[in-house]
């Protein structure tokens, strides 16, 4: 389990409108590369001096900004059936809309109430400070929205790889950070494991209860109760999201894959459960690439 988390993930590419053309952005071995931009850092300096910032560079910056952002797990896809189709036209339209438009959260900063008379100077100073704060907050929210749209526009392959990246970055936090990262990780694991469990056992996804397992060991999967009280109790490490789920491995050959024993693409050895409560067995699996030839959404077989 010391292999890099992305061992079972094939490289993937996306075409991004950039300048007058369309450039390739490539993900490989956990890193994003811009094939058409030899020196992105220099381009950033030029952009800071007033030059136009290349879309590819913006996307790479957004990737870096959100590589540890747990919100990615709440927004991104829950599985192959959850296609999030964002086009580059959508990204451009949102950027033009600025801080307005339907994707601004309803719970965003509120306008200050109307005043009937001229406020006192301290009140006016407070109001100005509050307005400044609201503007900063709106700017932050707008940037976050535009970032997310850009990252989603890269397509499903990139979406799941970013999810894997974020999960891995938060998989083994110091004890004092656990209370902060555990709730979003548990929700993210539940949201992605529940539909897999439904396909595996036919169980109601609402009856899947996930907890975070901290190594050593792979964790546990047990079925308890009957009828409405039936629960599938799953305890897996957060790294499962990157190593197993993002690679498209979670349900392979009617086994729930709980860990990767020896990573690789397109051949790997995983640990799979035939049924809840059983001990995982090693399975040699190989990826079946779709008709497009891309490994974005691989299908694995025994």
């Amino acid at each position, binding site marked *: 389990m010391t292999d890099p988390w992305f061992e079972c993930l094939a490289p993937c590419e996306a075409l991004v409108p950039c300048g007058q053309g369309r450039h390739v952005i490539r993900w490989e071995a956990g890193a994003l590369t811009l094939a058409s931009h030899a020196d992105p850092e220099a381009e950033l300096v030029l952009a800071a001096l007033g030059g136009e910032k290349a879309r590819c560079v913006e996307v790479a910056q957004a990737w870096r900004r959100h590589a540890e952002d747990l919100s990615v797990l709440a927004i991104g896809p*829950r599985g192959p059936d959850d296609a999030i189709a964002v086009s580059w036209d959508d990204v451009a339209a949102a950027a033009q809309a600025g801080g307005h438009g*339907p*994707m601004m959260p309803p719970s965003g900063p509120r306008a200050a109430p109307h005043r009937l008379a001229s406020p006192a100077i301290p009140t006016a100073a407070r109001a100005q400070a509050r307005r400044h704060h609201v503007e900063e907050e709106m700017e932050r929210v707008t940037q976050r929205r535009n970032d997310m749209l850009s990252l989603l526009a890269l397509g499903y392959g990139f979406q799941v790889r970013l999810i894997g990246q974020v999960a891995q970055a938060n998989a083994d936090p110091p004890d004092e950070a656990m209370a902060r990262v555990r709730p979003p990780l548990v*929700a993210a694991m*539940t*949201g992605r494991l529940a539909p897999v469990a439904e396909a595996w056992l036919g169980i109601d*996804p609402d009856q899947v209860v996930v907890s975070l397992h901290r190594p050593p060991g792979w964790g546990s999967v047990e079925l308890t109760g009957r009828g409405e009280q039936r629960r599938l109790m799953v305890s897996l490490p957060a790294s499962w999201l990157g190593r197993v789920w993002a690679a498209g491995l979670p349900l392979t050959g009617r086994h729930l894959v709980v860990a990767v024993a020896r990573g690789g693409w397109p051949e790997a050895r995983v640990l799979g459960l035939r049924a809840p409560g059983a001990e995982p067995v090693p399975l040699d699996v190989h990826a079946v690439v779709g008709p497009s030839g891309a490994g974005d959404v691989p299908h694995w077989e025994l």
Partner: protein
Amino acid sequence: MDREGAETYLRLLAEAKMRGALARVADRPWHSPPGGGRMGIMLVAEALTAVGALGTETVDDILADFDLAVSVRQLHDQPGAGPGMARSMPYRIAPPGTMHAAAVARWAAQVQARRSGPAVRAGWLVLAEPANPEPSVASGADRFAPVGLTVPFYDEGISGDMYLMSFVQTSAGARFITVWGINSTPAELGSGALFPSLIPLDLLTVTDDRGTRYELDFRPGSGLEHASEIGLRPAPPGDVRWLDVAAPLSPPVRLDLDSKTPDDPAAGDQPQAGQAELSPGEHLLLMLADRLLTVVPECLHRWRPPAAPGPEQAMAAGLGDIVAALEAAGALSPLSPVPAWLAALCACLGLGEHRIAAPPAPDLPEHWLSLLAHYERRKPDTAPVRDGYAGAAADLAELDGIGLAVLGLHNTEGNSSLHLLARGRTPESLPGKLGLRRDFPFSVWIRDSGGRWHVAQPAGWHRPGCESPLRLRLVPPLPRSTAWIEVLATGQSGEVRARLPLRWGYPR
């Protein structure tokens, strides 16, 4: 309090709503009835915030993620609804003023033109908020004294009554708490119109036992059902024993400021404070029950198309999730009887979609049963209670850091209002989807002299600050035959009871 458990529950709830969307794309939960989708998350979030299990920043983060997750999945649901396209928002444009309001405003302007006095703001029920009284120097402890004095006035064809409910002296100053109405005016005003310029304040005199006469200033309430204040300047010294209040055509009334003896029937009982021994979750659920008992009966006789669920369905639909969330947050014991009471209450009110796991309790608290019995026997054409006002005042104990005092009772237009003063640092807050106010975290009930219970819900707040007069609406209204009331206010940490005699006055 298990803050991590609370956050985990809310995130899992959001995840479940998303999962429902993926399972049935055509019936997305953010388009679902109240209790589902974002509304369901917000109800639980409000409950968890109210008990201190979650901060608003965490809630905002979770909702922002949920909103963005929903938005990106809806991008191509509707033709032309791209991310930069404006969509219709559920804003409601305020209807233009009615003919009645316009006529009243015109008339008020005419009156103002021929009178001097405080400025009139045109518009029905849209009057100036009471000014913040300047702190005045007053020796001695705070005073809360019932008055119960009707002051009739006649001036240039306009007549009316001003009723002094109570006298209050605190660090914010000395003032009478009043309600008032106008009897003979142009027909469109009716009685009880609120135009402060009509009050002939200069005809009223207040003199103390040393012959000192006080300047008076009028601070109107912000609506027909709100109390107004008449400030006294300077504030009476602490050792003043009585005040004489005199109005034209009425004998002066002496207001005794000395402490009442227990034998004095006007004194009422001393407030009795006690421990409430409620968990934060139980206290919250009891306040939600108060809301349900208030809201649901209002909806029983209101026309509504079958497909349009009302606020009571929204509240009830979230109760199961709220109970589970409070348990996950450690704010509610799984052994608490309150969820079972709530389930029984929902059953009594015909709200079947509450999803509370606990089976309905066989018994309910006495005050809930009293109110339910009232609804059972009420007929749609029951005559409303007649207008009236009752002098009553008492300094209740401090609950959860907020001092409460009773300032009076007031019946108008078929509604009863209990006027209170809240003192202490109360956070500025507007009621959320659950109708709860963080600045008034209390359950307040009134038992009348006939043994019937009335639930009291915040209905008006004059101003945020260290001293905030507020109005609670009583359901059901209080009949004028009530000789005394027992006020029961319950906070999370304790409760206080006070039995107060009522000194009723009536408009002529």
